C-alpha cells in the first residue's frame, strides 16, 4: 500500500526555503558571504522595498548585492525561475520585467523596483487556466527534462506579445537566448508556433 503524502516534494522544499528551516543547506547555497542579515549597509539604497511580482505587491528585505533570481527563489519562494549558470549564459532564469525578457540572475533586484515583474508562476490566469504558451508546450510535448522550460516560455511570451504571428525563424531568434541541453529546440519552436496559431 502506498499512501500519497499530502505534502509534495516541491511544496515541502518551498516551505523549507521560505521558513529558513534548512539552515545548513541555505548556507551552502549562499556561500560564505550569505544571503543573511549580517551584512551592514551604511549608505545607498533602502533594504526594505516593495516589488510588484505577478501583479501583487510583495514587501521584501533585499540586500544591495542581491540578484532578482535570488530574491524570487529564496525570499519569495517563486522557484519556477531556475538558476542554471548564474552568469547570463543559459537563460533558465528568464523573467519578464515590464514585459521584456531578461536574465534574473544578472539583474539587481533593486534595479527592478517600480517595475512589473512576471515569473512563470504569474502566467496562468486566476482560475488556473494555463497561458496559451504553457498549454501549447504540453500539447506539443515541448520540454524534455524541463529545466529550461520556464525560461523558454517567458521568452516566448515576450515574443508573442510583440509579434503575435511570428515566423519560425523569428521564434528561433527570440528563443536564442535560452539554452536547452536536451536539445528540444525544435519541439519548443513547434509549441510556440502552435500557441501563435491559437492566438493569445
Amino acid at each position, binding site marked *: 500500500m502506498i499512501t500519497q503524502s499530502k505534502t509534495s516534494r516541491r511544496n515541502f522544499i518551498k516551505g523549507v526555503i521560505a521558513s529558513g528551516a534548512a539552515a545548513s543547506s541555505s548556507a551552502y547555497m549562499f*556561500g560564505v*558571504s550569505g544571503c543573511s542579515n549580517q551584512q551592514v549597509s551604511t*549608505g545607498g539604497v533602502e533594504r526594505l522595498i516593495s516589488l510588484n511580482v505577478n501583479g501583487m505587491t510583495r514587501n521584501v528585505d533585499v540586500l544591495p548585492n*542581491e540578484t532578482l533570481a535570488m530574491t524570487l527563489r529564496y525570499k519569495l519562494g517563486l522557484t519556477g525561475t531556475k538558476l542554471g549558470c548564474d552568469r*547570463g549564459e543559459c537563460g533558465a532564469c528568464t523573467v519578464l520585467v515590464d514585459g521584456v525578457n*531578461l536574465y534574473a540572475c544578472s539583474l539587481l533586484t533593486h534595479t527592478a523596483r517600480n517595475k512589473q515583474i512576471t515569473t512563470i508562476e504569474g502566467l496562468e490566469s486566476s482560475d488556473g487556466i494555463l497561458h496559451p504558451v504553457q498549454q501549447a508546450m504540453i500539447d506539443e510535448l515541448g520540454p524534455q527534462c524541463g529545466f529550461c522550460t520556464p525560461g523558454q516560455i517567458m521568452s516566448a511570451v515576450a515574443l508573442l506579445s510583440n509579434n503575435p504571428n511570428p515566423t519560425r525563424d523569428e521564434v528561433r531568434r527570440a528563443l536564442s537566448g535560452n539554452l536547452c541541453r536536451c536539445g528540444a529546440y525544435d519541439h519548443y519552436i513547434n509549441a510556440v508556433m502552435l500557441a501563435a496559431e491559437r492566438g493569445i
Partner: protein
Amino acid sequence: MAKDMMPAFELYQPDSLDNALELLSRFGDRSWIVAGGHDSFDWFKDRTKYAQYVIDLNNVNELKGINETSEGIEIGAMTSLTEIELNDVIRQRYSLLSDAVSRVASPQIRHIGTIGGNLNQDARCWYYRYGVDCYRAGGNSCYADTPEGQNREHCLWGASRCVAVSPSDVAPAMVVLEATMVIASANGLREVPAEDYFIGPNIDIERMTVIEPGEVLVSIKIPNTWANAMFYFEKVADRNTWDFPLVNISRAMFIENGVVSRIRMAAGAVECIPRRLSVVEQVVAGSELNEETAELASQAAIRGATPLNFNHFKIPLLQNLVKRALRA
C-alpha cells in the same frame, strides 16, 4: 562556478548624471559603475574584481534615448542595444549600427545591455577573466602567449605584453561611422573620436578606453558623414548567440560613376582596439569593385599580422571577410 551571492557592496542608484558624478568623485577608486551589469556582475560573482561602492546608472534617464540633431544623431550611453536595433532612424540611415548591435550576445542581454556598456566592456581573455596575475591584472606575465597558452581568440596585431582583443561588435562600427564619444566628469564634458577612444596595452595595459577614473561615457554622436552609405557588417563566431567575435568586419562605402568614391572599414577581435583597415581603404578608393580589387584588398588587409600559436586561422578569415565586404 558557485551559485551564490556576490560579495557585499553598497549600492547607489542616482537619478541624475550630476549625482552619479558626485558619487564617483566621492568614492574614487573604490567605486564601480554598472550599466546593464552583465560584464560587471560576472567579475563580482567570480571574486576576480571587487568594488565597495556600486553606482547603478539605470535610473539616470537623461543618459537614455536616441535624438536626431542637425549634425546627425546622438545616442545616450544608457540606451539599450535592442532600442538601437529597432530605432527607425538608425535602421534607415545607419543600418551598419543596427546590424552590429543585433549580433551582440543574446536577446535578453541586448534588452538590458547598453551601448555604453558594450563599448566599455573589459577584455575577454579567459586567463585574465579567471583572475590570474597577468599583465592586464597588474601582474608580470602573460598566460595566453605561451607555448601551451590557449590563444585562438587573441590578437594578430598590437601585442604588447597583453594579447587580448577588443571583444565588441559595435566598436568597429563606431570607428567606421566616425562617431564621437562624449565623456563627462566633475570638470565638465570632453569629446573623443571613436578611433582614439580605444587604447591598446602599449598605452595602458589595465584599461581598454581613454576613460579616466571619475569619468563616465554619456553619449555617442554619429555625424551625417556616412549616413545612407552602403553598409556591410559580418561577424564570425563559434556560436550564433552569446558568443564574442572571432573576427567581425564593418564597412561604409559610397560609389560614384562606377568607382568607390569613399570607403571606411574596420575589423574587430584582431587587435586590442578596433582595427581600422586604412590600407584596404587606400587600395579600394578610386577603384571599381571587382574580384581583382577584392584580392588586392585582402592581401593588404593582413600586412604585418603576427599570429600566435593557435590563431593563424584568423588571417584567412579576415582576408575572406574583406573580400566578402567588397563583393557585397
